[in-house]
C-alpha cells in the first residue's frame, strides 16, 4: 500500500478539520478527492505531503509508519510533491524554479539540464525557460509548478485543485499532464477537484470528503441525464444517451428540459419492501437488492434498477421492514431526493 | 479643518504664553562659557545682583567661540568670557561697546602621578610643555576653540615646541575666511584634540593617563568634589603665561537695537564695583580661592 491512514485526526484549536477512521490508497493509481469547500481536502493533501502533522492517529507510507522528525521528513518529502491550488514560484527564472528540487537533492548540473528541458517540454513551457517567473499568467504558473514537481520524478504527485482558476485550454493541458505522469511514469496521482467530470474521466477511484470525514464513493447516485417532458406534470429522467434507460419520473419545477447532471440523495430515496405498501399513484421502479451494509447508525442498501442506486435508511425504519439481498423492492424517487449538480 | 485651526491657535497661544515668561523687561540675556558656569561663581553673583538691581539674568553657557558668536548674532545682551584677544577683537569690530576687566584665575598643567615626562621637575610652563613633547607623552587638548583651547595654543607657540598651523577655508558672505588652529608639529603621535568641554577633557585624560591643561576651578571640582576623584595631579602652576583673565562686554546697541543695553551696562558696572569685586574675591570652591578680582585690586 502507498498510504494507509488510520484513526487520523487533525484539530485546529478545538475544531476538528480531519477525522478519517481508515483510508488506504494504492500505488500507481489516480485518486480524485472530492468534497465541498472546507471539507478538509487541502488539509488531507498536506498530511499526505508530510507538510502537516496529525493531532492523533497514524499515517503509514509504503508500509512504514511516518515518524515526524526533521531528518526522516526530508527523506519522505523527497518522494512526494504537492502542487498548490495557487502555486507560488520563487523569484528568478522559470528554469531556476524547475531546477530547485534537483538542486536541493544534489543532482549534478549536467543531469539537471536534461531533466529540466524535458519537464518544461512536457508542460509545454520550453519557450519560457529564461522568463521571469513573476511575469507569468495563472495557467502558466500552474504548468511551471507542475514541471517543477514532475522533474523530480516523484513517487506521488499531489495536486490541490489543479484546474481551479485556469482557463479551459490550460485545464485540458493540465489534465493531460497528470494523465501522462500516471500512465507513462507510473507516478501515483492524488488530486482534489470540484469537477465530478474530471474525477470520472481521470481517476481510478474517488474519495469523497465531507466535514473532514470520508463519505462513500462520491460518484454514487450521480448521473448525467436527459430530462424530457413526458406526461403532464411529470418530467422524465433518462440516463445520458440511452433514452430507454429510464431512471424515473419526478414532479419538480426545478428541472428544465435538456441535459443535466443530477445526484440522488441516498437518504431521501424511499424503498417499498412489501408489495402492498407501494403506492399506486406515484411512479416508481422495481429493483433488486444487491448489498446491505450497516454504517454510522444507518443502513446502506444498494439496489439494482438497471443501474445501481445507493439508498440509506434509518435503523428503526430498517427494522420495521428489513429487505433481503436478492429481494425485489419498489424504489420511489421523490422530488426532494434530486439535486442538480 | 476646524480642529486644525483650533490646534494651531492653541500652539500659537502656548508659544506666546511660554515666551512671555522671559518677555518681562527686567531680564538680561548673558552668554558665558561652560567653565564659568561650572565654577559655581554665577550662583553666588546673580542672586546678589538681583537683590541690588531687580534684574534677572538668563545664562546661556556654551564654549567661548559659541558664546562670542551669540554676541555677534545679537542673540544675547552681554557676554562674559575669558579670551582676552578675542574679546578685544569683538569690541574693535563694533559688536561690543567696551570690555570690563573683571577677574582672573589660572590654568595648571596636570598629569598622572608617575609623571613619565618629568613635568614636575620643570621650572615653568614652557619647559613643562617641552618635556611633554620631547617624551611624546599623550596630551589631551580640548580642541574646541574655547578660551582654554585658545590659551593652550598660545602656550604651545610660546614654549618653543615646533608647531604647525592648520587652516580650513570657508566662505562667509563674499569673502573667503580661514579657520585656523595651531598644534604641535608631530601631533598625530601623541597629541589628541578631542573637541570637548573641560570636564570631559579631564575624564578623558584620566582614562588615558595623559597630560592636559585645565583651569583650576574645574580641576578642584573634579579632584575634590567628585567620587571617584580624578586621579591626576598638578605638575606645573604659577607661571605668568598661565593667568586667565575674564571680561564682560555689553553687546553694541547700535548694531542690534533690540538689545537691552541698559541692563547689560548695569550688570557690567555692578560686577566691577566694590560690591561685585568683594563677592568674587570671597568666593571659595571646596575651601579654595578660585578667582582674583582685577578691577579693584585687593
Amino acid at each position, binding site marked *: 500500500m502507498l498510504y494507509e491512514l488510520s484513526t487520523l485526526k487533525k484539530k485546529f484549536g478545538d475544531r476538528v478539520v480531519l477525522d478519517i477512521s481508515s483510508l488506504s490508497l494504492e500505488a500507481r493509481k489516480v485518486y480524485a478527492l472530492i468534497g465541498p469547500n472546507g471539507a478538509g481536502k487541502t488539509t488531507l493533501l*498536506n498530511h499526505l*505531503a508530510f*507538510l502537516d502533522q496529525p493531532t492523533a492517529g497514524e499515517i503509514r507510507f509504503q508500509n512504514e509508519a511516518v515518524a515526524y522528525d*526533521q531528518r526522516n521528513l*526530508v527523506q519522505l*518529502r*523527497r518522494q*512526494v*510533491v*504537492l502542487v*498548490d491550488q*495557487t*502555486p*507560488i514560484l*520563487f*523569484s*528568478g*527564472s522559470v528554469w*531556476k524554479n524547475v531546477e*530547485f*528540487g534537483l538542486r*536541493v537533492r544534489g543532482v549534478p548540473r549536467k543531469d539537471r539540464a536534461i531533466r529540466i528541458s524535458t519537464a518544461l517540454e512536457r508542460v509545454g513551457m520550453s519557450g519560457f525557460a*529564461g522568463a*521571469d517567473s513573476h511575469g507569468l499568467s495563472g495557467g502558466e504558473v500552474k504548468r511551471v509548478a507542475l514541471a*517543477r*514537481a514532475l522533474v*523530480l520524478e516523484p513517487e506521488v504527485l499531489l495536486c490541490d485543485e489543479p484546474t481551479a482558476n485556469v482557463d479551459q485550454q490550460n485545464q485540458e493541458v493540465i489534465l493531460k499532464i497528470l494523465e501522462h505522469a500516471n500512465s507513462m511514469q507510473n507516478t501515483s496521482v492524488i488530486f482534489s477537484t470540484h469537477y465530478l467530470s474530471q474525477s470520472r474521466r481521470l481517476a481510478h477511484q474517488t474519495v469523497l470528503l465531507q466535514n473532514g470525514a470520508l463519505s462513500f464513493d462520491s460518484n454514487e447516485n450521480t448521473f448525467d441525464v436527459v430530462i424530457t417532458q413526458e406526461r403532464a406534470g411529470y418530467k422524465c429522467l433518462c440516463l445520458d444517451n440511452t433514452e430507454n434507460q429510464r431512471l424515473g419520473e419526478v414532479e419538480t419545477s426545478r428541472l428544465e428540459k435538456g441535459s443535466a447532471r443530477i445526484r440522488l440523495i441516498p437518504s431521501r430515496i424511499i424503498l417499498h419492501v412489501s408489495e402492498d405498501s407501494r403506492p399506486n399513484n406515484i411512479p416508481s421502479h422495481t429493483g433488486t437488492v444487491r448489498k446491505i451494509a450497516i454504517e454510522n447508525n444507518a443502513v446502506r442498501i444498494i439496489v439494482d434498477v438497471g443501474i445501481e442506486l445507493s439508498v440509506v435508511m434509518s435503523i428503526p425504519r430498517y427494522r420495521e421492514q428489513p429487505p433481503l439481498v436478492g429481494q425485489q423492492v419498489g424504489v420511489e424517487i421523490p422530488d426532494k431526493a434530486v439535486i442538480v449538480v | 479643518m476646524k480642529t486644525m485651526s483650533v490646534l494651531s491657535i492653541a500652539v500659537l497661544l502656548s508659544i506666546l504664553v511660554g515666551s512671555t515668561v522671559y518677555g518681562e523687561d527686567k531680564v538680561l540675556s548673558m552668554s558665558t562659557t561652560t567653565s564659568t558656569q561650572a565654577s559655581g561663581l554665577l550662583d553666588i553673583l546673580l542672586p546678589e545682583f538681583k537683590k541690588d538691581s531687580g534684574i534677572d539674568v538668563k545664562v546661556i553657557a*556654551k*564654549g567661548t*567661540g*559659541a*558664546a*562670542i*558668536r*551669540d554676541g555677534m548674532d545679537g542673540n544675547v545682551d552681554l557676554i562674559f568670557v575669558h579670551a582676552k584677544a578675542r574679546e578685544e577683537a569683538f569690541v574693535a569690530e563694533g559688536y561690543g561697546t567696551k570690555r570690563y576687566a573683571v577677574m582672573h584665575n589660572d590654568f595648571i598643567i596636570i598629569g598622572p602621578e608617575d609623571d613619565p615626562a618629568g613635568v614636575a621637575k620643570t621650572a615653568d610652563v614652557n619647559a613643562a610643555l617641552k618635556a611633554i613633547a620631547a617624551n611624546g607623552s599623550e596630551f589631551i587638548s580640548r*580642541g*574646541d*576653540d*574655547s578660551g582654554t583651547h585658545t590659551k593652550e595654543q598660545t602656550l604651545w607657540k610660546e614654549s618653543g615646541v615646533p608647531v604647525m598651523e*592648520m587652516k*580650513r*577655508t*570657508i*566662505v*562667509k*558672505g563674499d569673502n*573667503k575666511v580661514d*579657520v585656523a588652529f595651531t598644534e604641535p608639529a608631530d601631533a*598625530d603621535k601623541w597629541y*589628541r*584634540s*578631542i*573637541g*570637548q568641554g573641560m570636564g*570631559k577633557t579631564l575624564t*578623558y585624560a*584620566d*582614562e*588615558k*593617563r595623559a597630560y592636559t591643561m585645565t583651569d583650576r576651578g574645574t580641576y578642584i571640582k573634579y579632584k575634590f568634589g567628585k567620587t571617584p576623584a580624578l586621579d591626576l595631579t598638578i605638575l606645573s602652576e604659577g607661571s605668568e603665561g598661565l593667568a586667565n583673565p575674564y571680561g564682560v562686554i555689553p553687546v553694541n546697541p547700535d548694531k542690534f537695537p533690540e538689545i537691552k543695553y541698559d541692563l547689560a551696562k548695569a550688570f557690567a558696572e555692578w560686577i566691577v564695583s566694590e560690591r561685585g569685586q568683594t563677592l568674587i574675591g570671597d568666593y571659595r570652591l571646596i575651601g579654595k580661592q578660585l578667582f582674583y578680582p582685577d578691577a579693584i585690586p585687593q
Partner: protein
Amino acid sequence: MLLDSLKSAFLLLVSLDPELFEIVGVSLNVSFFSTLAAAIIGLPLGFVVAFHSFAGKRFTLTCLNTLLALPTVVIGLVVYSLISRRGVLGPLELLYTQKAIIIGQVILIIPLITTLTIAAISKIDNRYRNTALTLGANQRQIAWVIFREARYGIVAAIIAAFGRVIAEVGISMMLGGNAKGFTRTMTTAMALEYDKGEFILAVALGMILMTCAFAINMVFHFFQGRIKTDAV
C-alpha cells in the same frame, strides 16, 4: 548662511582637505563595521525569532521593539561604565577608540536589524516555505529560500541600520571621545563646530554627511537592481 555653507562644503571638497577626508573615512569605517557586525548577529537572530514559535516569543518581540527606542546616551553610559579604566573591561583599554564606538553602535542597531528582518520575513507568503518543503528542501535550504525572497526587506533593514549609525552622535561622542584623527566622525565634528560657533563649517559638514548618505543609498539601490537583474 546656507549658501555660504554650500560654497564652503564645495571648497572643502575640491581642496581635498585632508582633515575632512580623515573624518569622513573614520565615519564610514566605523559605520561599516558596526553595521556588518550587527547584521551578522541581527539577521540570524531575526530568522530564528521569525521561524520558530516558542514560549515568550511575544515577550521577545515586545523587548526588541522597546529596545528600538533605546536612547544612544543610555547605551553610551552603560558601555562607558563597562570599558572605562575603572570598569570590568577596563584592562582592554577600549574607551575612546573606534572599537568602543562600534561596540555601542552594534548594540544600538541590533534591535533595528532584528525587528526589520522579522518584519521582512513575516511578510513572505507562507507558501514559499511550504513549496520549498514539498520540493525536498531541508531547514538550511528553506532559510536560504526565505532569505532570497525577503532580500529587499533585509537590504532595506541594513540600509536603515547604516543610516542610523552614520547619523548617530551620542555614542560616537561618549565612547569615541571625538579625538581628532582617531575617533572624530562627521557627526561629532559637526557638534564640535556648532560648539565653536562655526555654524557655516558645521552645516558644510552636514551637507557632506548628507551627500555621503545619499551616495551610499545609491550604491545599495544599484546592488538591489543587480540582484533583480541576476535573478532573471
